[in-house]
């Protein structure tokens, strides 16, 4: 029982982490990025390569992969998203266009990964030592993943809610049309937000790869779970993403343990649908 709670929290922690990235991209840059999960998987493979060929410790590789995620997303925003933002007559049109373009991105990233690594399951061994937590045994890599998720996610919350920089981003999320009146460069804020989202995806990828096997085609499932967490929590809400992420991790782990591992997605989906019908704006959403 307790074992499942711990495992559920580990999984939920990573979901919350990646969903925070997606919700920042969506809430501030107004771009629904369906290639998000594939960026996570790309980071998984990057960690794998660094670990197996150069024997770089996954924790150290965070220092390489996370800035890379930021830089790549910054470029993606400049090249692919900015023209769409400029041409869109309203938010709805941008949403549709961004969905379609990030679909393309999804296929490109997935295709590149498939071409390089093939379609098989990949993993590497890291910190696979059992650790005793409150009487249950948990793998060390899982525990580390949870700690990292909490630390990085927490740091982001602090930055968003305590710094001037975070305030600017939140202002753009809250009132995109009035923010420029206060001298805020909304374009720059949107690009920064998109890049931070990419950095979070990279972080999530490194963390997930520490304890899970992954395949080149697993990105879609990650995107879906991150999206479900974002919507469950309320679009654009960071605290919502954290609560919903943990909830989702627990639901998945318990369904896998007590019902059937093949039904986890069905269970997640049911929770999603019920909540959407009861609270259409999510747990922390505003009307």
């Amino acid at each position: 029982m307790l074992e499942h709670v711990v495992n559920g929290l580990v999984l939920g922690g990573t979901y919350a982490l990646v969903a925070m990235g997606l919700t920042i991209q969506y809430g501030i840059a107004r771009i629904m990025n369906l290639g998000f999960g594939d960026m996570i998987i790309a980071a998984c493979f990057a960690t794998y390569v660094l670990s197996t060929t150069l024997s770089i410790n996954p924790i150290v590789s965070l220092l390489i992969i996370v800035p890379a995620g930021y830089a790549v997303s910054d470029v993606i925003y400049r090249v692919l998203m900015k023209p769409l933002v400029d041409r869109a007559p309203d938010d709805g049109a941008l949403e549709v266009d961004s969905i379609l373009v990030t679909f393309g991105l999804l296929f490109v990233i997935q295709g590149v990964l498939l071409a390089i690594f093939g379609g098989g399951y990949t993993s590497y061994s890291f910190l696979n030592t059992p650790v005793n937590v409150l009487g249950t045994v948990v793998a060390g890599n899982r525990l580390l993943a949870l700690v990292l998720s909490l630390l990085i996610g927490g740091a982001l919350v602090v930055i968003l809610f305590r710094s001037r920089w975070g305030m600017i981003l939140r202002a753009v999320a809250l009132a995109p049309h009035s923010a420029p009146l206060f001298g805020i460069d909304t374009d720059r804020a949107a690009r920064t937000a998109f890049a931070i989202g990419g950095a979070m995806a990279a972080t999530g990828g490194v963390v997930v790869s520490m304890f899970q096997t992954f395949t080149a085609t697993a990105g879609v499932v990650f995107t879906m779970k991150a999206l479900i967490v974002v919507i469950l929590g309320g679009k654009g809400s960071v605290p919502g993403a954290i609560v919903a992420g943990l909830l989702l991790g627990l639901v998945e782990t318990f369904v896998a343990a007590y019902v059937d591992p093949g039904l986890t997605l069905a269970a997640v989906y049911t929770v999603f649908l019920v909540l959407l019908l009861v609270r259409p704006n999510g747990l922390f959403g505003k009307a």
Partner: protein
Amino acid sequence: MMKTSHGFALAGIAIILLAIAPLIVSDYWTGVLLGMTGYVTLATAWALFSGPTRYISLATVAFFGVGAYTVAVLNEALPYPLVLICAAGIGMVMALVVGLSTLRLAGVYFVIFTFGLAELVRQTVSWWEVNVTYTMGRYVFLPFEGRHIYWQLLALAVVTFLIAWTIGRSRIGLALKALGDDETVAAHAGVDVTRIKLLLFVISSTIITLVGAIQAPRWTYIEPSIVFNPTVSFMTLIMALLGGAMRLWGPLVGAVPLFLLFEWLSVSFPDHFSIILGLLFILIVFVMPNGVLAKIEDLRKRGRA
């Protein structure tokens, strides 16, 4: 513009030519025609709902797969026409349930819901087969050759076009145009938005289910990962968008070249198919946001001016 009677005569000739084609061309090309007709029907049916409402549905393969699976399960138990009717009925009921529970969700909520629907159905079917019926994968034994399947699809394509054409000319068509332009305004003008959306979703999904059902005998062996392959949803979407989802002929104009292109790509570059598909997606959104037909009209207007 061409007179309607002339249009019908031309369409009639085209259909007859298409119908006798498999008696003349090789089996390979019959297969190509079959696949193409399937996608033309899928894209047209998709656009029937998603064109006017601008709801991007990614549920295509959910219905397609359900149709194929129904045939896989029932093909030995019932006569073939009844199997098709069952498939259509199941698709219709599923569309009603999905529609009633989700059509009030707008924009990205709907996209994500339909995105996951296929995955949900696939998982549920797999789980059911493994745990309840103890089978993984089923065989479809029906005495059909490629051309038999092709003729059925051609007939379904014609029916789909007739439905789309009729809707376009009816009062519903007018209401739909209002709905696509501005849903709030349409609702205030007395258009029962939800009911029309539901009706279209059910018609569109039922046709898609039938496409899956009719194509099922092509795979003699069926399992969830084959018939619920999400690429079907993406291809349908990109074909309809390329041609222009707001026009009757749009999906056809998009589906034919793209199908041929994909056919060639998957044979010539099987390892890089997905990269090319992705780049094509991006290119289409950037260059032709409203589809080829709109682009041609634009160019013509500019040429005259």
